[in-house]
């Protein structure tokens, strides 16, 4: 009997662990665009990245820290992955799980890259990492890597 309850407990734990690994929504550009143009009271930091992009992976902790420490200042970080759609299960989900990423993660899965790169910003060549910071009054696009101090300085003008 004790063995059985242990087994039940283990399977319950396994099950609940599995449930924690949330799915990452795959969005077309049409679905993503409204998220990049919200006009509520928040400041959004949209970081475009991919698991295969080394400088992206390096700067992710700074975005995570930002999301946590500036939450009370109405700042939200959204990580938009440009991983290939067929790598979502094998690379992206395990990466997010393993690194315990807390910011919201979305996968942009849209074939019309000739259009959406320029539509997101005419300053963007399509290179990663890239970051869009905006609120209802202001908008800035950066095709560069950030460290935490640079990120803080970039966000400051948005929350003053």
């Amino acid at each position: 009997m004790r063995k059985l309850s242990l087994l039940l407990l283990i399977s319950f734990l396994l099950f609940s662990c599995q449930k924690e690994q949330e799915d990452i929504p795959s969005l077309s550009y049409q679905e993503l665009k409204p998220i990049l143009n919200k006009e509520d009271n928040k400041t959004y930091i949209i970081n475009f990245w991919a698991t295969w992009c080394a400088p992206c992976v390096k700067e992710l902790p700074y975005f995570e820290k930002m999301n946590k420490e500036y939450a009370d200042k109405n700042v939200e970080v959204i990580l938009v992955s440009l991983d290939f759609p067929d790598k979502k299960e094998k690379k992206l989900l395990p990466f997010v799980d393993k690194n315990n990423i807390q910011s919201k993660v979305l996968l942009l899965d849209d074939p019309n890259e000739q259009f959406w790169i320029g539509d997101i910003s005419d300053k963007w060549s399509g290179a990663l990492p890239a970051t869009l910071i905006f609120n209802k009054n202001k908008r800035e696009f950066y095709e560069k890597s950030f460290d935490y101090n640079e990120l803080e300085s970039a966000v400051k003008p948005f929350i003053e």
Partner: protein
Amino acid sequence: MKTIKTLLVVAVFVVATAFTVSSTKGGYKVGDAAMDFKLENVDGTMVSLADFKDAKGFIVVFTCNTCPYSVAYEDRIIALDKKYKSKGYPVIAINPNDPAAAIGDDMKSMKLRAQEKGFTFPYLFDEGQTVYPVYGATRTPHVYILQKKGGKNIVEYIGAIDNNSRRPSEVTERYAEDVIDALLAGKKPSKTYTRAIGCTIKTTMKTPQPE
């Protein structure tokens, strides 16, 4: 005092431009004559455009082993070569990455990859990174379609292979094929420039690179 000030201004200017210069896009425009080169192929020979006496032009593709976009396009680059080599437009692939900045883009790995995939075209190494800056390539893959005219190789197209890097089955515009079909028919290509989608070319010469 004034000279110090001037020097300082000059220094600031030099520092500022040092960064902007590295990111400005030089390189070829459509209509320019492209340089020839002599680069080592994965089979150990040295390859130049001039070796291809019977070619009408070239599909020069800057690509590499390590970029996911390059990998996604490998089969399509092979297909391009198979389709157009016999018509006079062979693929010439060049790896522009510095292996010191991109692990897995050295000649040994290139040989292995060419063998694994059965590349039907030369896969050359841009030793010392002397070729890609002249062309103005910034991405892998980055395509330059050249047409032989009066002994010169004239750039007719710069950009992407097609309009869907991620899903080959959902491609609706085959930019490179359309250009070569037009050239073969003696027409001007309708689209001569598209955005090359891919990874940045890796070099140790600059500050940390975006992908």
